[in-house]
């Protein structure tokens, strides 16, 4: 019986050559519910080098989602994930940065990584940091694929920002407006208080990686915005346009 290699099933993929992923470098910013799973998918698919950014440590509240284990509680998330990835696919080289990307060493590391990376995966939980990543990726002309799940835990979205081609995260903001913000929530722990379902996280992370493969291997039609609604079981592709006056990416920005 012929020996079956790790990437044998990927090599049979008709639309692109997955072997090219070995030469690619991807930065994953935020390795919570989305980022950890996305990093695992990328590593298993054969991405050569991954840079993981997250300053958080693993808490019990993170364990309802995938990848992390109870025995890893208290460890920095990036280190716990790196250990997992080393076992999942030893071919993937993983750089870990347990720092805040908006300040100090994390900022410097992110700027350095932006020069080298082929793609950035945004899996953060803060709107301000999404905008920050978007601005830096547009300035560095690096593709950004941002994923997010809604506060209800059953809906999510994926933005694909290819600077100069697709709308950036800041373009057309009002188009995304949904229902009113609920402010009756009280969080005393410092941990994100919204619900988070492993199913939605897995779907959004998978969509992010699917788009990442399309961008990295140049096949298929990249979807600028994907909206997933688990309540209705729908996945909507939104072909929105760039805003020429967008303060971040517009041609007529001032």
């Amino acid at each position, binding site marked *: 019986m012929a020996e079956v290699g790790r990437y044998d099933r990927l090599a049979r993929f008709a639309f692109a050559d997955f072997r090219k992923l070995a030469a690619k470098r991807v930065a994953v910013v935020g390795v919570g519910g989305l980022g950890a799973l996305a990093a695992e998918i990328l590593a298993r698919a054969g991405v050569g080098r991954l840079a993981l950014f997250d300053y958080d440590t693993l808490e019990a509240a993170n364990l309802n989602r995938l990848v992390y284990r109870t025995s890893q509680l208290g460890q920095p998330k990036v280190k716990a994930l790196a250990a997992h990835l080393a076992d999942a696919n030893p071919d993937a080289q993983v750089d870990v940065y347990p720092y805040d990307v*908006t300040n*100090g060493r994390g900022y410097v590391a992110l700027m350095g990584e932006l020069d080298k990376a082929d793609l950035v995966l945004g899996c953060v939980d803060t709107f*301000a940091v999404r905008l*920050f990543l978007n601005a*830096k990726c547009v300035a560095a002309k690096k593709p950004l694929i941002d994923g997010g*799940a809604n506060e209800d835990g059953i809906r999510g979205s994926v933005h694909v920002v290819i600077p100069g081609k697709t709308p950036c995260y800041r373009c057309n903001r009002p188009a*995304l407006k949904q229902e009113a913000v609920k402010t009756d929530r009280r*969080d005393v722990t410092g941990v994100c208080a919204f619900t988070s379902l492993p199913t939605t996280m897995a779907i959004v992370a998978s969509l992010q990686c699917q788009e990442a493969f399309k961008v990295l291997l140049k096949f298929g039609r990249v979807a600028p915005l994907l909206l997933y609604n688990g309540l209705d079981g729908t996945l909507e592709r939104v072909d929105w346009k760039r805003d020429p006056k967008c*303060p971040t990416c517009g041609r007529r920005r*001032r």
Partner: protein
Amino acid sequence: MTPTGAPLPRDRYARPRQIVDRFDVAKQEDDLFYFLLCATNASPPDPRWPLRAQEERYALARYFEYLKYLEKAEWVDLAATGASGTRWRGTVRDGGHAWDIEVILKDAYPAVPPACRIPELMHYTDRKLDDETLGLKICDMHMEQSYWWHEHCSLALYLKREVSYWVQSVVKDMRGKGWLK
């Protein structure tokens, strides 16, 4: 000044009116708002940061003047702890009580808002970020409706729009529960 002695370049459109016109939310603001904007979009590692820091100080000075002479309620005072103007310490006051406040302008500032910490009141908020600072609500893109920060907003505007309301609402709630006289 640059090492060659030439003045640092300002952004092309440095007039507040032109900055304001780019952001719909800004048009609803009062006259003070125009003094609380910064023209230079530069972060602390940027060589143009001294210009931005200067504009931040100017905006803060205008805001403190406004509080002193027009509002007649100096609920906050802040002073930079170093020459770079990235760390600020001071006091917030409400109803005869005072609490320490610390504000850090991170390297990503002004792409991200200031990181503000009021240690004695921080246990009391739903607006706490993972790094234990006060934030413009956590989590996801649905927050865009209440997200108002952009690169030309100053630390003074953050105090006016975010911290002042937050302190007031916390103090009101603490009074209602009898935790504060």
